[in-house]
C-alpha cells in the first residue's frame, strides 16, 4: 500500500501487526486514563471477563466467529486488490437470505432447512457484493463507493421488509417470527451434551466450526488453486495478469461474490445460531471491524483467526468491563478498532520504517 520497506517476512507478518496493536492499546489506555479510570485495572478486568471463566471463553469465541467471517471477507478481496467495505450490507442481506429460507421451510427437518438457510445467507451476501463488482467491471464505478452505498441500501431494504412484508404481524418491533427449532444451529454446549460432555453455556454455536472450515477453504483457495493464483496475480499486478491471459473482470466479480458470501455467513452465527429470527442491525459493526481484523491478520487465515480471537476478547471483555467500570463502555472497542486500522493499515509505514531500521542495523552488525 505504501512504498515497499524491506523486512524479513516473519517480522512483516507478526512483529508489525503486534506493534500496531500495542500502539493502539497504548493510545486507548491514555483515553481510559483521560476519563479518569485506571488502564491497568481496566485491562485486568477485560482479560478476566474474556478468559476468566468457561462462559467468558465461550462468548469470546462466539464473537470471534463473526470477526473470522467478516475478516476473511475483507481479506479475500484484498488479495485481488479490491477493498470491500460493504461487509455490513452483505451480512445484513445474508440475514435476509437465511430468514427467507427459514420462514418458508422451517417445517422441514433440520438437515434440509439448515443447509438451505446457510446457502441462502451466502447467496444473498454474494449477490450484494457481486453487483458492485459487476458495476466496477462493466460500468466503471468504483467498488469502494458502491459498497458503501449498498450498505445503506441493504439497511433500508431490510427495514422496509421487516416493517411491511415479513415482520411478525402485530409486533411493534421490526422483526420476524421466531423460527421453528429445526432451523436452529445447535449451540456448542448442546452439541457436547449430545456426546455426553458438559461445557459452560454460551451463545457459541456450530458456526464457529463453520468459520474454521471457511478459513481452511480460503487458505486452500488463495494459495493452492489456479483461481487463487489468478486472484493474487490480479491483486499484485493487473498488467501481469492481463499478459498471462487472466480476465481481470472475471476475477473481480468472482472475488467480490466470494467475499460477500463470506460476509453473509455472519448471519449464520447471529440469525441461525443465536437469535432464531431476523431483526434489525444484527450485524452491528462487525463488518467494519472485519477490516481491522483483515489488516491485523495480514490477510492470512491464521492471522485472521488470531486477530478475531483478540477482537472477540475485546468484545466479551469489554462487555464485562462496562459492568464493572460503567464509564468505560464497549464503544472503546470501536475506537480501538479504528486505531488498529490506522496503525496496521494507513499508517503502517510509521511502524515498519523503524522496525526496518533496527533490522538493517542488526544485519550490519552481524556481517
Amino acid at each position, binding site marked *: 500500500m505504501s512504498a515497499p520497506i524491506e523486512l524479513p517476512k516473519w517480522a512483516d507478518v507478526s512483529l508489525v501487526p503486534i506493534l500496531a496493536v500495542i500502539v493502539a492499546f497504548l493510545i486507548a489506555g491514555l483515553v481510559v486514563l483521560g*476519563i479518569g479510570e485506571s488502564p491497568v485495572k481496566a485491562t485486568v478486568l477485560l482479560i478476566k471477563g474474556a478468559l476468566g471463566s468457561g462462559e467468558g471463553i465461550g462468548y469470546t469465541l462466539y464473537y470471534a466467529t463473526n470477526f473470522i467471517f467478516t475478516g476473511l471477507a475483507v481479506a479475500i478481496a484484498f488479495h485481488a486488490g479490491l477493498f470491500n467495505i460493504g461487509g455490513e450490507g452483505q451480512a445484513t442481506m445474508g440475514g435476509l437470505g437465511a430468514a427467507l429460507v427459514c420462514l418458508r421451510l422451517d417445517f422441514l427437518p433440520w438437515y434440509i432447512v439448515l443447509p438451505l438457510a446457510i446457502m441462502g445467507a451466502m447467496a444473498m451476501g454474494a449477490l450484494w457484493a457481486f453487483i458492485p463488482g459487476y458495476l466496477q467491471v462493466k460500468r466503471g*464505478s468504483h467498488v469502494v463507493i458502491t459498497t458503501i452505498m449498498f450498505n445503506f*441500501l441493504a439497511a*433500508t431494504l431490510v427495514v422496509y421488509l421487516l416493517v411491511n412484508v415479513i415482520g411478525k404481524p402485530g409486533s411493534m418491533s421490526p422483526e420476524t417470527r421466531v423460527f421453528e427449532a429445526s432451523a436452529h444451529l445447535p449451540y456448542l454446549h448442546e452439541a457436547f451434551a449430545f456426546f455426553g460432555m458438559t461445557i459452560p453455556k454460551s451463545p457459541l454455536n456450530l458456526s464457529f466450526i463453520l468459520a474454521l472450515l471457511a478459513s481452511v477453504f480460503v487458505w486452500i483457495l488463495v494459495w493452492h488453486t489456479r483461481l487463487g493464483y489468478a486472484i493474487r496475480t490480479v491483486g499484485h499486478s493487473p498488467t501481469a495478469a492481463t499478459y498471462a491471459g487472466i480476465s481481470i473482470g472475471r476475477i473481480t466479480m468472482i472475488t467480490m461474490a466470494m467475499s460477500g458470501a463470506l460476509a453473509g455467513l455472519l448471519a449464520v452465527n447471529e440469525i441461525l445460531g443465536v437469535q432464531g429470527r431476523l431483526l434489525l442491525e444484527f450485524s452491528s459493526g462487525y463488518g*467494519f471491524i472485519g477490516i*481491522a481484523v483483515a489488516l491485523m491478520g495480514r490477510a492470512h487465515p491464521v492471522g485472521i483467526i488470531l486477530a478475531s480471537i483478540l477482537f472477540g476478547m475485546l468484545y466479551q471483555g469489554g462487555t464485562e468491563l462496562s459492568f464493572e467500570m460503567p464509564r468505560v463502555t464497549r*464503544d472503546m472497542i470501536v475506537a480501538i478498532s479504528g486505531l488498529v486500522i490506522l496503525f496496521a493499515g494507513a499508517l503502517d509505514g510509521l511502524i515498519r520504517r523503524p522496525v526496518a531500521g533496527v533490522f538493517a542495523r542488526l544485519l550490519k552488525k552481524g556481517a
Partner: protein
Amino acid sequence: MDIYATLIAILESSIRLCIPLVFACLAGLWSEKSGVVDIGLEGKMLVAAFASAAAAGATNSAFIGLGAGIIAAVTFALIHGFAAISQRGNQIVSGVAINMLAAGLTALVGNAWYAQGGRTTPLEGNARFLPLTWPGAEVIDQIPLIGPIYAHLISGHSILAYCALAATVASAFVLRHTRFGLRIRAVGENPAAVDTAGVSVTRLRYTAVIIAGVLCGFAGSYLSLGQAAGFLTNMTAGKGFIALAALIFAKWRAWPAMWTCFLFGLLDAVAIRLQGVSVPGIGQIPVQAIQALPYLMTVILLAGFIGKAIPPKASGLPYVKER
C-alpha cells in the same frame, strides 16, 4: 393556499436538513479536488458535533462551540492528511479508521463525561445557533405568495445556514477563478506537473485537507448546536456518506454540490412528511424507498446510466516525488 403552506414548510425543512450536507459535501470537494479521497467526512462531522456541544455547554457560547468543533475536525483531518499525504498510506483505509475512531471516541467520552448514555447536557439560549429573524419577516409573512418565501425560506435560519451559502460561493469562486484554486485542481489531476512548476504538492494537499476539516467543523456544529440541542451518539447517522454521494452526483463541482444536497434534503423532508400518509391514487409510499433514493441515484449515476461521473484523475493516489 393550504398546499402552498405545506410546500413552503417542506422547502423550509429541506433547507434545514441540507445545511450539514452542504458543508460536508464542500469539504469532500476540497479534499478530493486536491487528490485526497475522503470517506472520513462522517467521522469528522461527528467529532465536530461532539466537541461543539461539549464546548458550547461549558462556555454557554455557540461561537466557542463552533471553534472547538473546527479544531476537532481539523485535528482528525490532519490525521487523515498525515496518513494520506506524508505516509502515502491507503486513503480509504485511513478514512474508515477516522470514522470508527470518531464513532468510538465520541460515544465513549460522551458517556464518561455526561453519564447520559452518550448524550451531552441539553443546550439552550446562547449555547445554540438559533434561527435569525430578518427585519419585517412577520409583517411580510402576511403578503400572499411572496411573503412566506421571505419569512420562511430567506429569513428564519441560523447564521450557519447563511455560512453554508457563503462557503458554496467562496468554494466555487476560489476553485474556479483563483491561482490557488487552479493549483488545487491541478494537484488533483496531475501532481507531477504541479511539482515540476515548483509548487509543493504536499503543501497544497495539506491546505485542502485542512479546509475540508474546517468545513466539517461547521457541519458538525450545525448538527449539535443548530439542528439539535446537544450531541447524541452517532448523530451524523450516515450524513457524511450522503454528502459523499452528493459530491459524486454533483460531479465534483461546488454549485451542483449545493443543489444536490438541497435535493437530498428535500427527499429527507418529504420522507418525514409522508410518514404514514396515504397519497391519493398511489397509496402509502414506503418511507424507506425515499430514504434509499440518494444512495440508489448515486449508484446509478456512477454506473454511467445517467451521464458519467469522473473523479479527479489523481484522487486516491499518493504522490511520490521523482528523484
